[in-house]
């Protein structure tokens, strides 16, 4: 009975987390981004949300923690806690296909696969620039692997002649 109650709580908390959007990419929830790793419910009904940061220095993580606690408090879980884990390290491979489509519709090219081919130091970019999220052209280039936030690179579309961002694979 207690176990069933815990499972019900967990599902309810996960549903609340589906409504917490990433502050930098507001079309994706923190679950879709893979930031939420687990929800733990102890035998007294206490809720702990386990999160992992995207990048070590991502300044949004504090806002995300705040938003999670606020959303849970509104749903009646005012004593919920957030715990941070670093293992396994966050990867863009955790972003599911439907979320990738949302990114593209928002104007951000979704990430490719994060596989790290070759040796320890790969100077030349082995990967192709992503297709343009606006016009789908493949005639694109990566201008800089560091963009407006830690998780995005800056690209340029030669066909529609405008810059766009890419969620970079990591």
């Amino acid at each position, binding site marked *: 009975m207690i176990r069933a109650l815990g499972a019900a709580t967990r599902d309810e908390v996960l549903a609340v987390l589906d409504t917490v959007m990433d502050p930098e990419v507001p079309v994706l929830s923190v679950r879709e981004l893979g930031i939420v790793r687990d929800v733990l419910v102890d035998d007294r009904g206490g809720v702990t949300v386990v999160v992992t940061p995207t990048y070590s220095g991502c300044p949004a993580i504090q806002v995300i923690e705040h938003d999670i606690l606020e959303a849970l408090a509104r749903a009646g879980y005012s004593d919920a806690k957030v715990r941070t884990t670093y*293992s396994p390290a966050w990867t863009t491979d955790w972003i599911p296909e439907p979320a990738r489509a949302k990114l593209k519709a928002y104007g951000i090219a979704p990430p490719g696969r994060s596989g790290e081919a070759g040796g320890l*130091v790969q100077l030349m970019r082995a990967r192709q620039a992503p297709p343009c999220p606006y016009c789908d052209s493949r005639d694109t280039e990566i201008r800089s692997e560091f963009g407006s936030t830690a998780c995005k690179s800056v690209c340029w579309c030669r066909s529609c002649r405008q810059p766009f961002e890419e969620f970079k694979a990591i």
Partner: protein
Amino acid sequence: MTTPVPSVVPAPTPKPNALFEYLLRLGDDRLILGHRLSEWCGHGPILEEDIALANVSLDLLGQATILLRMAGEVEGQGRTEDTLAYFRDAVEFRNCQLVELPRGDFAFTIARQFLFDVYDVVLLDALTSSNNTELAAVAAKSLKEARYHVRHSGEWMLKLGDGTDESHRRVQTAVDSLWRFTTELFAPDVVDAELHAAGIAPDLAALQPKWDTLVREVLERATLTTPANVVRPSRARGGRTGAHTEHLGHLLAEMQIVARSHPGASW
């Protein structure tokens, strides 16, 4: 009754202060280099570079936060990552001297970054197999970021070295003046030895050949001359034991002034 002698000698458990020292070294390298890179914010030669250097800085400061927090927990004296960053004096910092040198021109910043980034990927790669699982996890995460860093600085080494006469001259001058500071990176001392024996840290001296090969390969492709190796300095005089150049004090004065002027303040 006497205690039976164990048939298998257990791995030596490092004294807590050795791990504390080691985490300070890892964290301080990142804190100080991150601060140096942040000085470029608003001064980059082009917008993309301004943003790139700020991004790398942010990654390093994020890593420093995690490592210094761990250091504070290992020490067990109640010091947080903020206390360690803002309320230690220069002699208590454990960063290598390479990262504290003033940022210089763009070529100097890139050359220093490249030499550090190669060291960083080699070290982090080895630390992912540390038997301290928390440190291994942080290393695995940081390594993903460091791969982006070294690709950025490495590509710039090629562009500057194999660019114009002036860019070549400037980056060669930078490499020449930075070279002697790289020997400190691979000079193990008692802390490294103790943690290596305990399976927590890699054998620092064994990492040097990997660094050497990677750095020489890129310098050669960039048409730059690799400086002759210098005599390895004694660790006793290096940043790892608190001996710093005059530049660290100036950096700390700027970095710590707000926190020290208003201790305990929050916003």
